């Protein structure tokens, strides 16, 4: 009998299709991927340590009395001290700053996105200037404030007004606010530009096609749409400026003042600078530690709250624009 054997098939391998991709386990890929993951975890870990350390230590020392009291001359005493003038000073200086920085920043961004010929020399120089301004060290802004606003503008104003003693030509709230305005200009420009670019060109074209002029289109159509982005820019600028100490060191901050500032030519006390003073000038660091942590917590709450608001507005704006586009 000569029967034909059934053909010999290859043995059934049920999983053959499943691991054709990674036949061999690549140790080095695993190792290095893990390493980058660890780097990420490490950064997040330190962030978490900083924040929890401050919140835990600060929370126990913070009280209504602490945030609503004007301290006496010796503010290192944990029982009687308060940070009201610092909160007020920081708030006023960033508020005055926004009055200057937002109009200038928004107008510059409008020029760059709506008018500027993209390849022209002037546009490129403006962009380079914005980039450079963003990278100038904050202490150099402080020197600039001292050399330009106080020693040049202020002294000349005193001379023009015939003031018998220096009124404008000395460190003052207004000069600190202006210095910060110059420093945060790029923040506002970049954020506004981003939001202007995100507006679909169709909206502008529709408006222009209906006979509106370019300026009317910008004012009535583009700007209202860009408002959340402009607000984000403003908030980011405020949060950046609220935490900066170096630019105000020589332009207006005071070590101690018995009263709140009344006039733009007054000096002021500041949260960030107060943190620095408490951390480095205290006669007894152990005793000052609770109020130091509490002050840091107040400062962090101020800047972080602003940052988170900016992030939320920005996320909403992106979602809305995605729906529009």
């Amino acid at each position, binding site marked *: 009998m000569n029967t034909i054997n059934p053909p010999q098939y290859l043995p059934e391998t049920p999983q053959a299709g499943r691991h054709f991709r990674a036949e061999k386990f690549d140790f080095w890929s695993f190792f290095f991927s893990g390493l980058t993951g660890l780097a990420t975890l490490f*950064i997040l870990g330190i962030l978490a340590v900083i924040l929890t350390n401050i919140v835990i230590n600060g929370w126990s020392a913070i009280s209504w009395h602490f945030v609503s009291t004007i301290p006496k001359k010796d503010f290192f005493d944990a029982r009687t001290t308060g940070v009201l003038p610092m909160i007020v000073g920081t708030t006023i200086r960033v508020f005055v700053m926004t009055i200057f920085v937002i109009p200038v920043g928004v107008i510059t961004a409008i*020029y760059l996105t709506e008018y500027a010929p993209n390849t022209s020399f002037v546009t490129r120089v403006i962009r380079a200037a914005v980039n450079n301004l963003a990278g100038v060290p904050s202490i150099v802004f402080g020197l600039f404030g001292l050399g330009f606003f106080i020693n040049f503008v202020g002294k000349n104003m005193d001379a023009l007004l015939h003031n018998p003693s220096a009124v404008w030509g000395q460190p003052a709230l207004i000069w600190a606010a202006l210095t910060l305005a110059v420093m945060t200009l790029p923040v506002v420009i970049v954020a506004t530009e981003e939001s202007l670019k995100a507006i679909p060109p169709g909206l502008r074209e529709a408006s222009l096609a209906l006979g509106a002029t370019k300026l009317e289109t910008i004012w009535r159509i583009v700007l209202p749409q860009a408002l959340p982005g402009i607000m984000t820019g403003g908030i980011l600028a405020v949060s950046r400026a609220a935490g900066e100490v170096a630019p105000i060191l020589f332009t207006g901050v005071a070590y101690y003042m018995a009263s709140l500032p009344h006039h733009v030519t007054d000096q002021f006390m500041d949260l960030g600078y107060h943190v620095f003073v408490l951390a480095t000038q205290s006669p007894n660091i152990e005793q000052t530690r609770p109020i130091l942590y509490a002050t840091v917590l107040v400062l962090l709450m101020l800047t972080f709250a602003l940052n988170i608001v900016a992030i939320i507005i920005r996320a909403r704006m992106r979602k809305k624009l995605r729906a529009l586009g």
Partner: protein
Amino acid sequence: MGIHRGHRARPLEWLAEKFIFLVSLSTILMVFLIFLFVAREALPIFFGNADTALVQKVIPPDEVDKLSPAQLREYLELTPQQFATMDKETLKSLMEVKQEALDEIPAKFRNDPDARINTTEWKYLLLPHQWSGYDKPEYIWQPVGQIQKYNIIPLLVGTLKVTLIGLLFAVPLAVGAAIYVSQLARPRVREIVKPTIELLSGIPSVVVGVFALLIMATVLQKIFGYQTRLNAFVAGCALGFAVIPVIFSIAEDALTSVPRAYTQAALALGASRWQTAWQIVLPAALPGVFAATVLGFGRAIGETMIVLMVCSASVMSWNIFDSARSITTTIAAEMAEAVSGGPHYRILFMLGALLFAATFVSNMIGGVVIQRFKLKLEGKR
């Protein structure tokens, strides 16, 4: 007429456009003014017009006739208006005052050869000098006291030391995290991790300084067991932490902007995710990562408060466990006590101008590299 916009048809519109253009020039004006006014206060140092010599050459009052009016005016440091109103007797008494002032300087300083030199000359700013009382030429920054020593080399060394430690700490971590977040992490992880790391840049530098001062300094001392608790190493680590978000976000941006096709091709050829990230994406994004490092350097060199809080003594030493004083720290700590317009004040402004120039150059390099990188990815070059 026609449909193109013309100023004749709409004068208000034309005016508004010009106004917008003029306002937008303000950023250029600001960069220019910063440079001008920081450099202006430092000019006397550059031209050698400042003089700190404690003991000036004294001309006896009897020799008043031998001097020309110009020489006399310069000697008595008078303005032309002041000089014009004075008669010979007043001038003579001024010269006597000058001589008496010299006699009042303690003999210890009067006979010191250092008291006769102008310490703001470039020779003394940059080269070591054997001050009296020292046994060998040394680099010394000591701006207070009778004889002010302004050698800026210790400050440059301190700045570089702290900045380099910061970058050595920050660049691997930030770039590693950027590779992980942009290439390896799942989308959901990426969406949480990226904004969280960027939130880090919202922490004010004084707060990082407090953390470094109170916690990091103690922990690092326990680990490494060095002598001085507050030193350049602690400052550098804290500084690195402040620049991580800057480097991370630029590097992440560069890595993400590498075209998907590169990654897909590599994966299709059988490379693992890590091999793709390391051998394909990272080399393609290398200019962006380089720019991130350069911009991080610019940020680190200009950071003030962290270094100011953690270490401050100016010592000429490359040892990372010694203290260090950076340029920014020096300006921040000493400007308050420097006499406005005096040599110390001028030198601090000169340091500021130096810092401005350094960051200007690093920003330029970073900006140009990024722009070229973007153009290349878009296939325009």
